[in-house]
């Protein structure tokens, strides 16, 4: 399925994935879930949330500036 993914502060990009939930998607993107929070279609969600075609996913690093 195709979804849109964007890192916080960047433009979104289309992506084709077989991942059915956010944990699998983060693993596919080689992101440690401990280091980010995720907005799914503009809402903060838990990582067991299901991913559906057309979803917009924003990945926000939790580390503060410096």
């Amino acid at each position, binding site marked *: 399925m195709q979804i849109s993914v964007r890192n916080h502060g960047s433009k979104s990009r289309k992506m084709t994935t077989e991942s059915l939930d956010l944990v699998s998607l983060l693993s596919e993107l080689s992101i*440690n879930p401990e280091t980010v*929070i995720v907005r799914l279609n503009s809402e903060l969600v*838990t990582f067991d949330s299901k991913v559906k075609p057309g979803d917009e996913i924003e990945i926000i690093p939790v580390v503060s*500036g*410096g």
Partner: protein
Amino acid sequence: MKCKCGKPAIIDNPRLCKEDFQKWVEKQVRSNVKNHKLFSKNDKIVCAVSGGKDSLTALYITKHLFKNEVHCLTIDEGIKGYRDTTLPFVKKYCKEWDVPLHVYSFKSEFGKTLDRMKNSRGGDISPNCSLCGVFRRNLMNRKSKELGDVLVTGHNLDDEVQTIFMNLIQNDYDRLARMGFIAGIKKHKGFIPRVKPLRTITEKQSATYFFSKGFETSPVECPYVYTSLRHKVREQLNLFEFKYPGTKRNILAWFDNIKPKLETGDSEIILCKLCGEPSSKSICEACEILGST
């Protein structure tokens, strides 16, 4: 997955909806302030704000949960492409939350920006976080004493655990022994108490609170962060946390258990001959570095 109230959860740990999670964070902060006597109702509070999620959260909570007079203190280190992106957010929220803002720059206080100091040290970028820390602490202590009675910082549970590890790696027993809800050498009048109301809240929980309130800030990170030991320690701790959930909280609990048994090896505190700030030597570290650069 749902919160216990039936609404969708916004965070995995604790599994709570937006409203319940915000209440949970605020309750933690209230308990921390009360149980560890971080400040009293008449204290004038200075909040150190970088413009990142944690310090803005600390400012918001301090201003809105307590009735104290609150001032915001921001240090402009002069890091091109970074500080100029976060300062507008500090200004915006200070205006919105009616908090007086005081900005002090390395340039005006020490005569050089952090970027310039790096260059005059021959382009060796690895010491920049510690270099920055020396000047930041000096300036924060000096200015917050003029502005108030207690300095609130946005240090969270992750920051504390990283610092425990860094002190172990660097065999810095004295710094380790001085850690806690109230940081530093408390009993010297030259030091303002630095307190950490977010110390029991993880980086992830702090960020979730920040975004759940609808706040925004610059996504730009400090360009020097990747050179620091803290950055490497953070990465490793996050790997452990992922594989062994609860690692960070356990490390902090272990430290808090042994802390009463640690003897602080604080050396005698005197005042720096040049700037008048407390120091263990006749010339403080900041003035010593300024001389060498």
